């Protein structure tokens, strides 16, 4: 039986780092990558608890999180391209209205 506490700690730290990245930056690409880091921290916690309870459901949840993330990234990057075409910039603080 492995001690899963340190793994969960690493997951929490990664979640915090990602959250800080989302809050500190206005660049949409770095914000998206920070969201990826947050999701990965959560995945690590899922897998750690799956190992703790000797259950496989946690790992299946991780697979579903990855699936939703792939869909999210595809849509988000398409929107990023649209924003860049619209404003010529990736700074989200300039993007304050949806119409022209």
């Amino acid at each position, binding site marked *: 039986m492995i001690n899963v506490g340190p*793994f969960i700690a690493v997951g929490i730290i990664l979640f915090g*780092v990602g959250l*800080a990245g989302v809050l500190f930056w206005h660049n949409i*690409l770095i914000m998206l990558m920070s969201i990826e880091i947050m999701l990965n921290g959560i995945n*690590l916690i899922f897998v750690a608890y*799956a190992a703790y309870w000797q259950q496989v459901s946690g790992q299946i949840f991780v697979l579903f999180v990855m699936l939703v*993330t792939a869909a999210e990234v595809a*849509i988000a*990057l398409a929107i990023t391209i649209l924003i860049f075409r619209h404003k010529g910039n990736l700074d989200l603080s300039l993007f304050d209205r949806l119409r022209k």
Partner: protein
Amino acid sequence: MFFFILFSVTSVVAAFLVITRRAPLYSALFLAVTLCAQAGLFTLLGAVFVGVIQILIYAGAILILFLFVIMSLERTESRWVLRNPVVKAISGITVGVLVVQMLYALWRSDSAAEPLILTGGPRGEDHIAVLGKELFTRYLVPFEIGSILLLVAVLGAVVLAYKRGK
């Protein structure tokens, strides 16, 4: 214990570097490092399949998507990297170590041995078999909905990014 410290320190430091770089290109490359280190952490926890999928889907597909968008939108000066002899030396050493390591693993392994079944997963059974059984029985409906979600997302991305009136 050594591997836990190695992977966790690598993933946290690389994650920190992701959010402190000014150029998104470097952020994306450090994101690859942190994702691979996390795949190592998954493997340490017995989730071998999730680790492999992490490298394939995250560090492979999603990261390539990020890199494509970054390189088509940002003008990052990356030419010096190719001309820098230090970078060339590090790349060469990395490739050499990788090839030697794989050949060493092949040489040390007994190819006539019985196929290795990964045990030590949940309940001590074959880890990947348990995962597949659960995924295709208990979680079948979410799995199918997920595939439809991916299809819709791909179509949506194409429709959104398509240039109209050309």
